[in-house]
């Protein structure tokens, strides 16, 4: 008996064969004349400066962490959604409690400013002002 995922496997095999054949044909018919300039990476015609793996903003990392938390919650929500109609009011209240917890986490992140992409510049305390305030 062929399971449904078996059919998906055949589907993927067909797609893979198609891609491999086109790749093979392309390899035969296309020219291959590399030169020094062609193999350089594109940087608007200038010589590339420094390492291509530049440092990127930490906020991307924070976004990935938030995503991880909420995506796990999506996974937890799906079984509840599927069984919801059999559970009546009990299921409803459980779902609301779960969603409330979610909203609390969301509100915390919002308040902390982790969802803010354009953050205001941090204001480091200035020694002069602190001393002035103390003497007053």
């Amino acid at each position, binding site marked *: *008996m*062929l399971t*449904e*995922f078996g*059919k*998906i496997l*055949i*589907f*993927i095999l*067909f*797609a*893979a064969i*198609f*891609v491999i054949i*086109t*790749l093979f*044909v*392309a390899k035969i*018919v*296309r*020219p*291959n*004349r*590399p030169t020094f300039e*062609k*193999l*350089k*990476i*594109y*940087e*608007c015609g200038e010589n*590339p400066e420094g390492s*291509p*793996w*530049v440092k*990127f903003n930490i906020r*991307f990392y924070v*976004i*990935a962490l938030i*995503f991880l938390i*909420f*995506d796990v919650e*999506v996974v937890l*929500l*799906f079984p509840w*959604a*599927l*069984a*919801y*109609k059999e559970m009546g009011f009990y299921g*409803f209240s459980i*779902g*609301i409690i779960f*969603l409330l917890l979610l*909203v609390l986490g*969301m509100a915390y992140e*919002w308040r902390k400013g982790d*969802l803010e*992409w*354009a953050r205001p510049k941090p204001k480091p305390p200035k020694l002069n002002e602190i001393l002035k305030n103390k003497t007053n």
Partner: protein
Amino acid sequence: MTIWEIIITSVIKIAIALTSLLLSVAYMVYFERKISAWAQNRLGPNRVGYRGLLQPFADVFKLLFKEDIVPDAANKTLHTMAPFISLFVAFATYAVVPIGPEVNLFGYQIKLVVADVNIGILYVLALTSLGVYGITLAGWSSGSKYSLLGGIRSSAQMISYEVSIGFSIGGVLLMAGSLRPIDIVNAQYGGMWNAILQPIGFITFVVSAFAETNRLPFDLPEAEPELVGGYHTEYSSFKFAGFFLAEYANMIIASLLIVTLYLGGWQIPYVDKLGLSEGLTVVLQIASFLLKTAFMLFVFIWVRWSIPRFRYDQLMNLGWKVMFPLALLNIVWVAMLIMIFKL
């Protein structure tokens, strides 16, 4: 049915599905160029074949004959793999979308779907998550600053909107009580389309689908004025065609999913009250499914030529501060609907 009959029917279904997918991708490119020309009062492609109808084939052959340049700084293995990850994800998702009800052909009961998986929606979600890898690896492995920035932006964008997609689908699952796409369509019988019952979820899903497929107004990863080509700056020849195909295939799959989850799939309200013969009804239903999908695809192109691109901070704010709370609200709304009206 014996095992051989099952294999033969599925091979035929797969052949039809793949050919129609490839053809529709090719003609999506053509229609996008025609509609954009129409929107901007130009002519669009009109030289190759009758009214430019053979243009997609000319494009494909051009890309086949182009030299494939892999820069020296690139990580060769990952650079080659990335477009195929994108293509694989785009093609494999297609296998679980049903285009019509069960039909009786030559004495066999045939489901008009390649694989009737009972966890179809989970399968779709899992594969679309994998799609992030193709773009991130392409950006990272090219060894170019533009590619890296484009790839990182794109992955952050896609994961942000994936959360809203997940929560919007939660509303649909509440209504259907099943992860099987056919059950979800059947649950929308008689004009009870999810788009009408849960308009908020519909909007969040559509907007997030735009962001997931990197279409304008959310095409930040390849914002041309600042990032050249984004993650595919260093791609040429057939590898570039891979990304191109994957983008359009993703768009088609997004439309198919919108129709299946929210617009009632192949359902036409009250068509069974008209007293038409069974065969005609099925043909009408399949036609309605294709029409709805074509309309969603038109909306994709229409929006592209009507709305300017977002700034990156606006994109993130929209994703986390508007779409995500709205998707949560939608779940509460659907749960209340079911509680009150016992749907």
